[in-house]
């Protein structure tokens, strides 16, 4: 089917960053029958950049873990512009382990420019927190489904991205580092964000082509903000279909498939 909105990578970056782009707080009441939020990592504190809790979708109990963008300056202060600290990733892991215990699938929503770069984040082991999640999510004995809602920036995104199936919203971007950071590192010029965007392969189609994502979730014409209800419906439909499919698979088979999904990514030749 011919699509009306084919935006350039940079246009997409602008779309997902603009004020009014729906956040997980907009989607949750539209996708889930109910949601009970849970707080804290039981080690240090509660990170507003990652929210989590339990809910249900079409009667199936699930654990929900999500990076939260603010819709206004006050919300952004609370959620640190969706840049998690180590306690956020540790809260995510605690809730994922709880899901495993109660045989609930885990649904992760990714929406972050990246993990927070700060003195305290380093002191509390930002690197260790992300690494731990990658390892533990890889062997978590319950289905995991992740969805990139807007920005999926670097290890801060991947910490919620080890899953059995990854979906990306049509205009979302997923990248090794923010395009700004990419330009700054490789060309010593953060202003070349637009060029970075066009070269980095960050779009939903790129993710399918590179084997990073399995599914693109359509957005309404012009972007998700034009019809939050429709976007939520598209997400819900994908989630229900994928959940019921993954829940039928024997957990050891599922874990092997999860390992293989990441195992095969990489391009090299052997001389």
């Amino acid at each position: 089917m011919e699509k009306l909105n084919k935006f350039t990578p940079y246009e997409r970056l602008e779309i997902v960053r603009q004020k009014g782009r729906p956040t997980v707080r907009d989607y949750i009441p539209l996708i889930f029958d109910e949601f009970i939020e849970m707080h804290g990592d039981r080690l240090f504190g509660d990170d507003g950049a990652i929210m989590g809790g339990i809910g249900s979708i079409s009667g199936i109990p699930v654990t929900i873990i999500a990076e939260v963008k603010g819709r206004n300056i006050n919300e952004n202060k609370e959620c640190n512009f969706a840049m998690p600290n180590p306690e956020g990733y540790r809260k995510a892991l605690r809730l994922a382990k709880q899901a495993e215990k109660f045989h609930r699938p885990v649904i992760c929503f990714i929406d972050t420019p990246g993990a927070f770069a700060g003195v305290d984040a380093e002191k509390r082991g930002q690197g260790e927190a992300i690494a731990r999640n990658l390892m533990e999510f890889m062997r978590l004995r319950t289905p995991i489904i992740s969805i990139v809602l807007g920005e999926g920036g670097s290890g801060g995104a991947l910490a919620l991205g080890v899953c059995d199936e990854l979906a990306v919203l049509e205009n979302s971007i997923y990248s090794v580092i923010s395009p700004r950071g990419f330009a700054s590192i490789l060309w010593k010029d953060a202003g070349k964000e637009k060029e970075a965007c066009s070269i980095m392969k960050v779009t939903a189609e790129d993710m399918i082509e590179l084997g990073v994502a399995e599914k693109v979730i359509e957005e309404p014409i012009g972007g998700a903000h034009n019809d939050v209800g429709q976007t939520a419906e598209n997400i819900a439909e994908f989630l229900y279909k994928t959940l019921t499919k993954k829940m039928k698979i024997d957990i050891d088979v599922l874990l092997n498939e999860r390992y293989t999904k990441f195992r095969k990514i990489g391009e090299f030749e052997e001389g």
Partner: protein
Amino acid sequence: MGLEDLFNVVKTRFNATAEDNKDDKDSGDSAVKVPDNMLFKCPRCLNVIMTDELEKNLKVCPKCNYHSRLTAQERIQLIADKNSFSEFDADMLSKNPIDFPDYEEKQQALRSSTGLKDAVVTGECTIRGERCVLGVMDARYMMASMGSVVGEKITRAFEFATENRLPVIMFTASGGARMQEGIVSLMQMAKTSGAVARHSDAGLLYITVLTDPTTGGVTASFASLGDIIIAEPKVLVGFAGRRVIEGTIKQRLPDDFQSAEFALEHGFADMIVERKSMRRTIAHILKLHKGAHA
């Protein structure tokens, strides 16, 4: 060596070089030529010493104890039993998954200047008779950033160790994920962490040795996942780039920020071990875990 002695050594060598040049009839340049790499300036304490003094001291700054970078070859010589190392995947070369301009050319140049094929060397060896899988990252190659080849070689090293019930020792050093391979590099973090998980689930020992510099996506994956984490003194260990953090907080960070000592203080390393004791320490730990690998 006192400062005065150092000057004397430098002076005599410069003069020797100048003498050589005098004999060379084609050399019309009267300026004294300073050979490259004759002096080493410590990036930590800024002390300047003769390179051969540094080499004699296992490339450790005699003044501040900063453990400077070793090549993969030097590291293997220092750690593995003589002639015991056999390399895995020695000919693996990366492709250009996002068609990044000049990526191939850049690698060609590095391959000829370093003799490496990419930023990690993996293989099997014995350390004081104990068999293990050894991985060594080499910062000369694109700051040992992790792209497809680094990710694949490390994953295979862990898989080999899991199949053969061997411990893994990984000397980490990296600027992080390799930007030139885009999202494909990011996925190597998940891939390597998955391989570590399987090795761990098999009840096998994994020792990480953090060397200069261990940062970014490597810190945020296999480098932080060792059962035992050792760091070399004074090396850089952290996640986010220093300049990025300074940009966020708008002030200069203290010098010991993101050092091995900082990692130890905050609970992210088990111990700091000097280079001269590294082989002995690792052999000792391996011996204590012998039962796990029977």
